[in-house]
């Protein structure tokens, strides 16, 4: 996620440079042919282009809005994950009874449940970024659980299953009554919904029509533009045409970049930072003295 005030041109330029340079060459050739080649028939009235620009703007705005909708939904889901993780940790630490059983054993169970929740958050981030989660989980979970998790393709879902199994055992041992067990189970269901929501965004691309037609229309508009401008601007046509084209090409590019919020780019939902926030909160709830450091922006970007 970009947190710096301004977006340097050098970050946008590589995405748009190829198209703009080609358009500039095209604009220059139209201007030269009209001005020095005497091909006056190249000029077309500018009136038909105005409604086309309007329609294109609406199309691009719609596309950018749809892309932003995906990005914002991803951020909302991760905001929900922060809340649900805190809720689950609080419930695990306060709702499981230690009466009538081994106190140390109950403390271990609570700790394990909170650690499983931290593991869930870490593995969800890795799952969405197609990253191997196990180097991050090895120091957090016992080896036997790690071995079981390695057999699953969906590790976050398997972690929720581990948590649910522990809760069921606690219920069978009489440490949880039915009401408390349902409350914890509801929180686990919330977490499953968040996992499903993130996977939906990750695995479902924007409808291709929303991606393809704006791109084609932007190219068509940019190619027609110099013909409409050349009569009035002559050799200044390339400057004006390229500047106007830049606006449309940049809008098209921005829309495409934010449509994938879990794709290891600067436009990602800041999952690393949010994971760290959850870790700090949960470790502090566990009473750990040494908690990980906060994640700060790197060169104006939070990952």
């Amino acid at each position, binding site marked *: 996620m970009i947190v710096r005030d301004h977006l340097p041109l*050098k970050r946008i*330029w*590589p*995405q*748009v*440079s*190829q198209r703009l340079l080609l358009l500039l060459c095209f604009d220059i050739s139209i201007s030269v042919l009209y001005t020095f080649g005497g091909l006056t028939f190249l000029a077309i009235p500018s009136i038909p282009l105005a409604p086309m620009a309007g329609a294109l703007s609406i199309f691009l705005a719609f596309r950018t809005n749809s892309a932003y909708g995906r990005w914002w939904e991803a951020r909302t889901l991760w905001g929900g994950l922060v809340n649900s993780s805190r809720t689950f940790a609080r419930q695990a630490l306060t709702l499981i009874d230690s009466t009538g059983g081994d106190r140390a054993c109950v403390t271990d169970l609570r700790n394990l449940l909170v650690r499983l929740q931290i593991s869930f958050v*870490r593995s969800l*981030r*890795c799952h969405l*970024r*197609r*990253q*191997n*989660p*196990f*180097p*991050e989980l*090895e*120091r*957090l979970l016992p080896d036997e659980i790690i071995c079981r998790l390695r057999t699953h393709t969906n590790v976050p879902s398997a972690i929720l299953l581990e948590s649910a199994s522990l809760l069921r055992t606690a219920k069978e041992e009489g440490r949880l009554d039915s009401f408390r067990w349902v409350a914890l189970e509801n929180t686990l269901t919330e977490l499953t919904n968040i996992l499903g929501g993130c996977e939906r965004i990750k695995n479902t691309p924007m409808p291709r029509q929303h991606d393809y037609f704006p791109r084609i229309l932007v190219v068509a508009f940019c190619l027609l533009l110099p013909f409409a401008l050349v009569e009035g601007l002559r050799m200044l046509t390339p400057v004006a045409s390229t500047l106007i084209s830049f606006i449309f090409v940049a809008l098209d590019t921005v829309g495409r970049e934010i449509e994938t919020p879990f*794709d*290891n*780019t*600067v436009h990602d939902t800041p999952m*690393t*930072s949010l*994971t*760290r926030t959850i870790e700090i909160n949960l470790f502090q709830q566990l009473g750990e003295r040494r908690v*990980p*450091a906060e*994640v*700060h*922006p*790197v*060169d104006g970007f939070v*990952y």
Partner: protein
Amino acid sequence: MRNQFGRRLLFPTSFSDACFRTMPVLSEWMDDPEARLTLLHVYDSKKNGRREIERQLQSFFAEADQYGRCERVLLAGDPKTQILEHCRRHRYDLLFLPASEPTGFPRIGHRSLRARLLREGHVPVWTNSDFSRSGAMRQSPKNIAYVMTNEPDWKEHCVEAAAAAARWNSVFHVIYVFPVPDVDDGTLASDLFTGRETGPLEALRAIVSQLPVQFRIHTSTGHERFEVRRLLKEAQADLAFISSAKAMTRGLFGRRMSPILNSVQCQFVCFPDNPRPEVLEQPRLVDRLALPDAG
């Protein structure tokens, strides 16, 4: 059977997008209890304050802190000099150097840092193609290729590649392009087709028989640059092991990375021409395998 190769990893980072996209690859290599990772950043002390850069380095690849086997090193000065000096002072098995971001302008006079570090660092280099915007390894590689040469140390490189294929449970592909027109000049060509007992094919068979990998050979005749690219695509290689002679080419302004690397969406591990002496002295997997004495 696992070699020491790929356990001491050095990732010099400039905090660029390309560096961030390399993180999934690093997490894959770090999924080994003995792997160690060093994140190195070299900064210009005239332009930036140390404290701010140190803060950024601590936040870069924050999840690496959870590995417990990661250290962060901050140095001031010229990146190439400092990275080389750091490599000289410490022993690393693999240097992670992703392709830099496109600038949108022609890079006339550009001198490749990757090529210079591969030539002068004497350490194998991991890299990727510069057009692969999603250059990160999305999951453990399914197909690992070794681009075979007639160089004397080919067996050692082949063993490393086969060991990597065994580690990730991948299919191991050996790629060889016969030289044209001297097809039958006593090199691999004659050995492959006549089945000579002590030929490279026998050595290949010996290597893969001692490692739990599926093994396929892809051969072709023609222009090396195009044929290697074609065979890598045919093998659907996710990761290819290649010698520096094939990974680099001579450009107008010095050595640069070969166009082969930029024409395939694949990751590469490039072996240096002359590895450091202490690397040669350490126990190698190739010495532990019973291999026929083939050239």
